[in-house]
């Protein structure tokens, strides 16, 4: 499915179809949200192959645990994004991932290093990245750790040697900046 004619349904329609096990809706869901979710995953896991595995696992989990989603608790995308983030973080901490780092063939090293340092020039993203970079450095470093690196706020506090409350406030301020820019 190309970006040109993405089918789109309202969230309510999607949820209804998803929870009534209509397999066609997963296609729709995939074409609507796969790139947004992959954007989240690929910032936490820069290795393309592993990131794609996680994307696949994310949709499998969305399909299998659709009945667990409760629309009163939040938006569908938030739920899907959290599945993607949690699976990414799990993958990052798994033996699987660590082994994949260790067991690289010497020939593959160059491409692997390239993959690790890959810079994607998604034109849609450029403005937003700049926006994040325009944040005050203390806000930026917190958002980087929590959103891009998959740290919990507790880990971020340890890493930055800050009180938990400060980390939380900074995450809030950073997101308020985002909200302001989208309005």
């Amino acid at each position, binding site marked *: *499915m190309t*970006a040109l004619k993405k089918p789109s349904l309202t969230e309510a329609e999607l949820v209804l179809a998803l929870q009534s096990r209509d*397999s*066609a809706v*997963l*296609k729709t869901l*995939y074409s609507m949200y*796969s*790139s*947004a*979710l*992959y*954007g*989240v995953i*690929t*910032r936490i896991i820069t290795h393309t192959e592993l*990131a*794609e595995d996680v*994307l*696949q696992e994310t*949709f*499998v989990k969305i*399909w299998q645990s659709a009945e667990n989603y409760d629309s*009163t*608790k*939040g*938006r569908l*995308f*938030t739920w899907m*994004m*959290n599945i993607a*983030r*949690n699976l990414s973080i799990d993958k990052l901490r798994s033996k699987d991932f660590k082994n994949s780092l260790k067991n690289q063939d010497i020939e593959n090293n160059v491409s692997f290093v390239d993959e690790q340092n890959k810079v*994607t020039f*998604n034109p*849609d*993203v450029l*403005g*937003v*990245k700049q926006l994040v970079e325009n944040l005050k450095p203390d806000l930026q470093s917190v958002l980087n750790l*929590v*959103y891009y690196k998959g740290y*919990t*706020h507790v880990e971020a506090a340890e890493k930055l040697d800050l009180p938990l*409350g400060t*980390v*939380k*406030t*900074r*995450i*809030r301020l950073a*997101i308020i900046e*985002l*909200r302001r820019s*989208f309005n």
Partner: protein
Amino acid sequence: MSVENLKAYIESGVLELYVLGDLSPEEALQVEEMAAQNPEVKAELSAIELAMEEYAMQNAVEPSAAVEAKLFEKLGFEVEQETVYQSNTTIAATEPKVVRLDGSDGKLRTLRFALVACIALLVVSTAALFITYNKLNDAHDQIASLNLDKQKFAGVVRQLEFDKQGLDNMVAMNDSKEWATIRMAGQAFSPKSKMNVYWNKNDKSVLINYVAMDLPKPDAEHEYQLWALVNGKPVSLGVFGKSDSTGTEALQKMQTIQEAQAFAVTLEPMGGSVNPTMDKLTVMGGV
């Protein structure tokens, strides 16, 4: 919960952590309860969610197409199954169309026949027109050639009438005995030529008869001049035209001459000459 406490709760950043999935299950449950009880919390939560969703949309990265195929394979949604599903929807979507076409089928067929008939008629008409046009052309050619024939015959008839008149005159002159016929023979300039001159013994008038002459056709700048030799001197009796003169009269009256020993004809420039051009002496004959 008081307004101040609510504000403090919202500003603590716990809602953001909730959206980021960074809370323990107990903490998350607490946030959900707060949201259910306080519309302000619910609204703030929604705003954060929307911001994060928008942010994710804007940071979207297109995965490779292979992932989708692998995913649906893994979930057991066969590709064939997928296409069958799609084609079913296609059939369902096109079904009303078929029904609609059925309704106007007879009319459509009639129109189609009419179209075919029109085309056939057009082809036949074009062929007929072409044939008629050719026939018309033939007819025009025939008319033209008939006209030519008609003109030719008219010319022949005129010539015959002209000749007959000349011959009648000759017969009449022969019968009357008062006309002398002088036969002039061809000279060196034109040996084959010959011509008669008729001279009335009573009133001395001179006639020539176009039927009774055989002279080469003169060109446009020349005409024949009749001379009478009177005591060795040429006297002009006038000019005359071509042998097939356009005049309807076969006879042409020349000037009278009282006495002459001989007649002669020379070819002279148009209008005639005062003295005969002797090297153009065509015919001559004595009385």
